[in-house]
Structures are given as structure tokens and as C-alpha cells.
């Protein structure tokens, strides 16, 4: 494996961190080379740095050094950077006012950290290591030993150094694609209190101490793009029934995979990985029973199986401390992943239970027209390129060919969620030159809603030009009483 080259810049003695990093990375099977520069700026040693050719430059300005270096000029160098934020610190010279008064150490640290966050948001090459949270979690006494600082300029005590090294290694692993993507949870005495097959779905306790906070943590993970899955030793129907408990604040549909039977948990995890198209080492498995954890650990060594405290009230803090779900970036696609799949599952359930007419009426669809313009040109072009089944004349457009044209982009939402821009129309006078509709919006009566909108603005004429795949929109104009131009009359 290629070795990772890390350049470490610190305004305190860096040796303890350097050693801890090498140990931590070796423990994760990552070869690494670390080179430290103490009390120097990367700008001052550009030649040496270029010769070292780091994969990543780590900047650690400590609160104790009181230097508050400007990170911006360093970004002129062509590297990726990881910058530690500063730990909270107060010298007690003006009490609570220290938070407010801009000249205090406490306020200057807060301002430096805020500027760092702004920089990281604007510059994709810069990441932040949350050293401040390490101190908040371990306590000041565990992270700062004034004697070490005075005797040897060591700004971080051993426990804090170890935690920082782990946090940096988490980030390096994530950057190399070693990401955990799925959280697999047990149900009985994990998601709720009680064993549903023994006491019945009504008698479980979803509100027992710790359970609600655990579920809130799961929901937060899903919101940022982690898949949730269930692995439970239960009859499937009984497990599903438990989700109808009035105090239950999660639905079975919140889980992208739902495995419930009486086989071993490791077999369930294998099926979950296959179903979600992920490798086994991207799974995290949480279960209250040590024997289940041991079984999975033995059968699937790649799966992360954290030990859990006996008391479920302690779980969320213990899980947060493990930093199981390091992420390099979170995209809009991540945020929409669970939402989109959940909404689609709910639609399918409702559709199965109702007649097509009842289903459509129940969706509470709202179609919003937007004039074709710079803000939606890219999406409109993409729709014409992707839509085959509902592309009235088989037309394709690019952003350039759409620029300056008259038309509409239609956004659809229903009571289950936002489907985004689903249809685009290009007009030439009263003639519908292009009309495409996304597959996601087919069979929902959206065609008529679009035509009603166009008609409300004035009379329109349409044309159907057959292509290999657009047979399904052959009758749409006729069914909706739109005057049609015969296929041969307008050249494509």
C-alpha cells in the first residue's frame, strides 16, 4: 500500500503527536510518514515542503501559544490542509465578561475558530479537526498539563494527544474511502426496551431511558446520508408490529434494509450488505447482547462492532465519542438520500392500498411552474437529455440551445416530499416545440396539470413525433383536447 505523507506544523512541541499519529495509523494498517516542523510556517519552508511532497499538511496552532496565525496565506500553497481548531481557554481575569469582551483570550479563540470555519466552508482543500470537542469531552485537566507546557512546550497532555491522533486518523481513513455507510441496529432492548416476541407489540417500551435519544441519533445519521438497517431475531411480522406502538417515533420504512428471522446475526448482516451494495467493512453493528456482538465479530471481522455500556442512557455519549461516521463532505445528494428513498417507499405502500384514482387524489400534488431561465436551464437541458418515454417530439437540448428560449420548468411536490423539477416545455409562439416529463412523475396525472397551466395562458398546439420509446405519450394531446399538428408538418 502507498504510504501517506503527512507534514505537521505546530507552534508547540510536536513530537508526542507525531509518535501518537504513527502508532494510530499503524494500528489501522496504514503506512505513514510524518515530518514535523515546530514553530515554523509552511510559507517559510516551501522548498523543504515541496521536497517532502506531502499528501496532507496538518496545521496545529495551539491556544497556549497565543499566536493566532492567519491561515489564509498558507492556502496559496498547492496542498490539502487539515487545521486543528483551538481549545476553549480562559484565564479568569474578567469572569463571565471574557466571552463578550473582544480582547480576552476566550473571545480571541472563539473568533479565530469562527474564521477557520468560514475558511473551511469556502475552501474545499481545507478540513478542520475538532480538537476543541476533544477537550470538551475529556476535560481540560486531561488535555492540558501546564507543567508539560512550561517544561517542554507540550501543549496537549497524553490523553488529549491520543484522542487527537485518533481523530486525524479517522479523517485520513475517510479520505481514502474507508467510510462507514450503514448502521445496523438490533431491535429488542436496543431500539426499544423489552422483547416483543415475549411481551407483545403493545407492551414494549419505546420511551424507556436512553431509547428515544438513541433513535434520535439514528435519525440524525439517516439525515446526513447513512443508511439504517435492522438485524433482529424475531418473526418479521411481530417486529414490524412493534413499530405501530403509539410511543414509537420511527417507522419500519426509516430502514433501508429490514432483516428479521431466527438465524445468526452475521447472516443478516451479509444479506444487508448485499442488498445495499456495500462492502461488509462499511457496516457498523449495534446490539445490546454481548453474545450477538461476539458472533458478528467472529464471523465478519471487517464489521465495526462497538462495545456498548450496560445502561442504554449512556449509549449516545459513548457512541458519539467513538466518531464512527467520519465524513469528508456531505452533499445535497447525501441529505436527500434517505428522504427520497423513504418517500418513494411510502408512495408505493399507499399506491398498493388504493385504486389509481384514490391514490392520485391522496397525493396532494402541487405542480409549480417556473419560467425557463438561467436558474433552471441546466436542469431543463438534463431533462430533455434523459427523458425517453415521455418526450413528445424526441427533442434534445443543451443549455446553449435553450438559452433565450421561451418555456417552463415544472417542479412537483406531494405530501410525501419534493420530487424537484420533473417536466420542461419549450414554446415557439403557441406551438409546443419540446415537452418532456421525468419517469418519476409518470402515471400521476402530471401531464394534464402541465397542459392546464399552458392553456390558462392562451391556446396552444402540440405535435407528437414517434421515436423508438415514446409510444406512451402518443394519445396525450388527443385525450386532453389539444389541437395537433400532423407529424410530418414541422421538421424536427
Amino acid at each position: 500500500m502507498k504510504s501517506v505523507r503527512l507534514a505537521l506544523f505546530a507552534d508547540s512541541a510536536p513530537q508526542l503527536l507525531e509518535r501518537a499519529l504513527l502508532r494510530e495509523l499503524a494500528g489501522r494498517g496504514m503506512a505513514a510518514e510524518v515530518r514535523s516542523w515546530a514553530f515554523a510556517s509552511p510559507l517559510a519552508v516551501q522548498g523543504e515542503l515541496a521536497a517532502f511532497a506531502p499528501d496532507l499538511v496538518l496545521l496545529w496552532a495551539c491556544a497556549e501559544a497565543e499566536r493566532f496565525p492567519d491561515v489564509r496565506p498558507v492556502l496559496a500553497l498547492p496542498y490539502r490542509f487539515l487545521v486543528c481548531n483551538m481549545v476553549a481557554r480562559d484565564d479568569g481575569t474578567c469572569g463571565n465578561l471574557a466571552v463578550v469582551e473582544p480582547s480576552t483570550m476566550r473571545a480571541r479563540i472563539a473568533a479565530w475558530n469562527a474564521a477557520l470555519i468560514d475558511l473551511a466552508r469556502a475552501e474545499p482543500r481545507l478540513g478542520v479537526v475538532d480538537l476543541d470537542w476533544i477537550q470538551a469531552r475529556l476535560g481540560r485537566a486531561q488535555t492540558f498539563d501546564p507543567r508539560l507546557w512550561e517544561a517542554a512546550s507540550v501543549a496537549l497532555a497524553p490523553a488529549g494527544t491520543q484522542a487527537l491522533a485518533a481523530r486525524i486518523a479517522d479523517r485520513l481513513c475517510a479520505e481514502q474511502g474507508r467510510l462507514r455507510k450503514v448502521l445496523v441496529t438490533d431491535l429488542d432492548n436496543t431500539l426499544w426496551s423489552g422483547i416483543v416476541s415475549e411481551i407483545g407489540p403493545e407492551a414494549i417500551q419505546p420511551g424507556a431511558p436512553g431509547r428515544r435519544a438513541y433513535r434520535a441519533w439514528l435519525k440524525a445519521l439517516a439525515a446526513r446520508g447513512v443508511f439504517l438497517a435492522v438485524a433482529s431475531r424475531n418473526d418479521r411480522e411481530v417486529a414490524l408490529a412493534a413499530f405501530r406502538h403509539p410511543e414509537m417515533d420511527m417507522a419500519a420504512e426509516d430502514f433501508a434494509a429490514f432483516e428479521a428471522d431466527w438465524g445468526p446475526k452475521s447472516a443478516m448482516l451479509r444479506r444487508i450488505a448485499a442488498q445495499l451494495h456495500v462492502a461488509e467493512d462499511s457496516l457498523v453493528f449495534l446490539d445490546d447482547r454481548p453474545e450477538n456482538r461476539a458472533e458478528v465479530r467472529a464471523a465478519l471481522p471487517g464489521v465495526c462492532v462497538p462495545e456498548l455500556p450496560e445502561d442504554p442512557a449512556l449509549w449516545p455519549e459513548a457512541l458519539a465519542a467513538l466518531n464512527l461516521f467520519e465524513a469528508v463532505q456531505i452533499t445535497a445528494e447525501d441529505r436527500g438520500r434517505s428522504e427520497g428513498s423513504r418517500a418513494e417507499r411510502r408512495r408505493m405502500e399507499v399506491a398498493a392500498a388504493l385504486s389509481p384514482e384514490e391514490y392520485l387524489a391522496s397525493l396532494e400534488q402541487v405542480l409549480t411552474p417556473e419560467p425557463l431561465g438561467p436558474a433552471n436551464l441546466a436542469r431543463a437541458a438534463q431533462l430533455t437529455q434523459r427523458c425517453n418515454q415521455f418526450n413528445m417530439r424526441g427533442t434534445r437540448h443543451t443549455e446553449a440551445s435553450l438559452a433565450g428560449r421561451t418555456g417552463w420548468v415544472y417542479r412537483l411536490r406531494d405530501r410525501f416530499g419534493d420530487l424537484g423539477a420533473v417536466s420542461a416545455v419549450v414554446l415557439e409562439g403557441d406551438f409546443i416545440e419540446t415537452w418532456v416529463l421525468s419517469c418519476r412523475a409518470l402515471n400521476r396525472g402530471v401531464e394534464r396539470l402541465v397542459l392546464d397551466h399552458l392553456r390558462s395562458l392562451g391556446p396552444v398546439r402540440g405535435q407528437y413525433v414517434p421515436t423508438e420509446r415514446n409510444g406512451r405519450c402518443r394519445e396525450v394531446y388527443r385525450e386532453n383536447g389539444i389541437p395537433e399538428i400532423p407529424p410530418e408538418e414541422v421538421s424536427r
Partner: protein
Amino acid sequence: MMERLAGLFSETLGRPMPPLAEKTAFADLPGWDSVAHLALLLAVERAFGVAFASAEMVSMRTVGEMAAVLRGKGVAP
């Protein structure tokens, strides 16, 4: 005390120690450097349940000096 120190030193520095004498300087121990020195001091603090003052941390240069500081903190010779 000397035997305990020798055990701690070899544990912290990760290698066997030669016989320690009062005049043995830390700088002459195998595997010693300034960072190892700090790790060594912290290990001795934990093992004997004492805390060194920062001045003591920088002043102790030989095993004998450390033993004297420890005796001063009530550690049996």
C-alpha cells in the same frame, strides 16, 4: 526504588535497561530523547502516585536526582 525505576524505564523506552546507578544520566539511557523523557516522568508519577513540579521536571538529569526528589515526596528508598 531503583529496581522499580529500571522496570518503568524499560517499559516506557521499550527496551531493556543496563544496571542503573545514582550517577546514570537519563541522556545516556538507550532510546532516550526529550519526548521520551516526558513520557518517563509521567510514568514515574503514575507508578509512585506523586506529582513533579515543573521546576523538578526540568532540573532532574540523573537517576540519583530523581530518586532524591522521590524520597523528598515520601517515597521509601
